[in-house]
């Protein structure tokens, strides 16, 4: 494996070209949207929901690797490295965060008008300072964890690399003490950092949920919501990890047969169990709000599930009325994709092991999370009343799809690039 590691590869041409094209498409959609006066607010809104999705997902991927370490999991093999490669996007998501800062006037009402009773918390300077610090911290912790985890693989690469790579690896492997010692050290230090990664994810992404989602409807409160959002980042990363593993399973570049039936089964079990837990968190929040029926709380749900949220209309006529209201269909689709389908389809052992079924469910889950982030953001900024009055809203518009594609392109370019810079990040054929 060492020799192989010592020969850093260039990016695979076709996938790299496709993802670069998607990234370019995203950039075009973003700039075209922002520069046109009537679509500027919409563009920033779409950017925000995509950023929330991919930033939490990337950090969630680092958490997946951390969870493998913390639980002494022995089944994952190369899957851990693939999760770490996905986690490389945290650096880019940190850079993209500043676009939200640039668009703050379009996104956050409290930038212009203080929220009664929350003037201190939503003072714009203080808000962006704490969020920036939180993101600096969580990005640093995640990257440091990845560095610790991957450092032992850099020793051989350092010897053989040339050019800029040689200086880079030399810098990263300063104080090298031999592969065995480094591996042992990485194991011990990685375990400690894994706990820090998990705690930082929970705390920092809770703060992000409060400041970038709850603040869009500042009268609404829910103690559950921040944890629910952070958990979504973790689950969506497992779904995407499954897709990536399935896509790579026949790749000539990766260890052949690394995605065994048992590993597919285990990934399927993770999606199955954690989607149940996601639904449990959702239900625990929904149920308490529904039962108490306090307007400050129900408003957030009504905007997404319709005005009949509080009524007993789960017969067919009522159902049809319900889905005719803005956003309701999309919200129900989120449930279907993130919980209903993973639960019922992945109940048995065989569907979990069957690549086509597991892959379809995982794709559905990731799409579901993309829609979920859309549903968390959009109705607060464009309330159903405005939609009924004629505001054009769709998650499938050219700006939405363009920016969404841009994030997909950037994410996978980062994934491929990470595997090239860190030669041990993606397990190779013959390794």
């Amino acid at each position, binding site marked *: 494996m060492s020799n192989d590691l010592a020969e850093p590869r260039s990016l695979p041409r076709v996938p790299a070209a496709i993802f670069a094209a998607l990234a370019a498409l995203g950039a075009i959609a973003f700039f075209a949207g922002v520069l046109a006066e009537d679509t500027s607010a919409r563009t920033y809104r779409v950017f925000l929901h995509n950023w929330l999705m991919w930033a939490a997902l990337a950090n969630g991927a680092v958490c997946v690797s951390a969870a493998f370490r913390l639980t002494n999991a022995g089944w994952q093999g190369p899957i851990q490295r693939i999760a770490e490669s996905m986690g490389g996007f945290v650096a880019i998501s940190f850079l993209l965060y500043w676009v939200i800062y640039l668009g703050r006037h379009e996104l956050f009402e409290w930038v212009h008008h203080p929220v009664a009773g929350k003037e201190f918390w939503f003072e714009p300077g203080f808000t962006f300072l704490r969020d920036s610090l939180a993101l600096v911290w969580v990005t640093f912790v995640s990257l440091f964890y990845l560095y610790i985890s991957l450092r032992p693989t850099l020793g051989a690469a350092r010897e053989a690399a040339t050019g800029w790579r040689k200086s880079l690896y030399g810098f990263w492997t300063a104080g090298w003490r031999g592969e065995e010692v480094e591996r042992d050290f990485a194991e011990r230090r990685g375990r400690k950092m894994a*706990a820090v990664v998990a705690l930082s994810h929970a*705390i920092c992404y809770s703060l992000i949920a*409060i400041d970038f989602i709850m603040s869009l409807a500042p009268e609404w*409160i829910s*103690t559950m*919501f921040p944890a629910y959002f952070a958990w979504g980042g973790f689950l969506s990363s497992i779904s995407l990890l499954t897709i990536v593993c399935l896509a790579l399973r026949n790749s000539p570049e990766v260890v052949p047969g690394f995605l065994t039936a048992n590993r597919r089964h285990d990934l399927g079990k993770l999606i199955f169990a954690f989607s149940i837990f996601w639904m449990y968190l959702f239900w*625990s929040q929904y149920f*308490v709000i529904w039962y*108490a029926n306090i307007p400050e709380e129900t408003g957030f749900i009504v905007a997404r599930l319709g005005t009949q949220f509080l009524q007993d209309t789960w017969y067919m006529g009522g159902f049809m009325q319900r889905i005719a209201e803005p956003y309701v269909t999309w919200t129900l689709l989120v449930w279907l994709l993130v919980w209903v389908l993973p639960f019922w389809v992945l109940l048995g052992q065989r569907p979990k092991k069957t690549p086509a079924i597991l892959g379809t469910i995982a794709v559905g889950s990731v799409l579901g999370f993309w829609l979920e982030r859309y549903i968390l953001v959009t109705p607060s900024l464009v309330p159903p009343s405005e939609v009924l009055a004629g505001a054009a809203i769709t998650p499938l518009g050219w700006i939405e799809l363009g920016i969404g594609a841009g994030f997909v392109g950037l994410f996978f370019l980062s994934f491929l690039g990470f595997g090239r810079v860190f030669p041990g990040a993606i397990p190779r054929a013959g390794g």
Partner: protein
Amino acid sequence: MAAATEPLPASPDAINDDILRVLEPPSKTYVLGVLFCGALVACGVSAFLYQVYWGFGVTGLNHPVMWGLYITTFVFWVGIAHAGTLISAILFLFRAKWRNAVNRGAEALTVFSVLTAALFPLLHLGRAWKFYFILPYPNQRGLWVNFKSPLLWDVFAIGTYTIISILFFIVGLIPDIGAARDRVRDWRRHLYRVLAMGWRGTSEQWRAHSRSVLHLSGLATPLVLSVHSVVSWDFATSVVPGWHTTIFAPYFVAGAIFSGIAMVITILIPVRQAFGLQAYLRDVHFDNMGKLILITSSIVGYAYGMEYFMAWYSANPYEQMSFWYRGFGHYWWATWTMIICNVIVPLPLWFKRMRVNLAFMWIVSIFINIGMWFERFVIIMTSLSHEYDPAAWGYYFPSWVEWTILVASVAFVLFLFLIFLRMFPVIAIQEVKELHYEEAH
């Protein structure tokens, strides 16, 4: 006192000998312990009869605090009952092998805790002898239970949990009862013969047994989430400041596992010393239980922080007042006891050497038991005594009757556990043998 790392005995027979030694005639200390616990239980029964005779006036309950120590203790014991199911069902499904040595003790604790918990709603009934009114069945009274009340959901949640945990406990015991049946010569032999249900250890029986455990684990796993979630909704579905909060369900579940694991540690460390089970309850068990405590303590700490933050963030004066009152009002001592015991005291467990230091672990576990009881006390008392209208504010402090019954409930669980220790193997023999076999090969 550090945890042992002695190897398991070399032969399966030696494992049988070691574990079944607990069934031999008891020591004087053991007998005194049983008598002491029995005496405390008798005190509790007397206090209850006194309450029945004189009515609820002998408790501290009064307007506006109508849920007092009994409901606090009910939630506390339901929480303790979560450890067994977590260790036996969820860790079984996660293939966490280390659970093998501690699952039997945890399951026993679950059964005894849930039975004790079930007593408290009855103690809290004004007319305890009318308890069957809470069960939905066609009756000549023309009364029907209120299915919209979370209190009725408790009946179903706790009832289901009791049935499943008893089933789990009994099914897991069958092979070991078979082993005990073949060893003891006194009256217990007849009992074991009945409870072993014809166990002969054939491959057919083993297959059926493994399948039963797997299916029961699948059934029991959702219960770990559902039972304490339903208990949390007793509070969260109301519109009471400090109670109506969406995070309650997972926060209660994490707290339940936290307290349950702590109680398992509190009980197993003395058992390990008393019965010389050092080779079975090893540092890996306490290390892992310490990690579970850390995870759940972090979740509980996160929930405390989030509750306080959201109360402030809400800009709702009632919520803000409620949480200010928690920290600095009449019950400040209870709140700070809760925070210190549940969040601060477990912090040294981030270091492995503290997790395998059994003396330290035992002390921490006792602090957690106290802290988790206070958590429920704080939630109930501070919110009920300070709701919306200052004219309706009040103060509650439990009476001697309630304190006596609380102490008796602890004694009752210990009493049952001590009896269990002499009747059944506290460590699952067959599962330890499996582990031993896997380690050897």
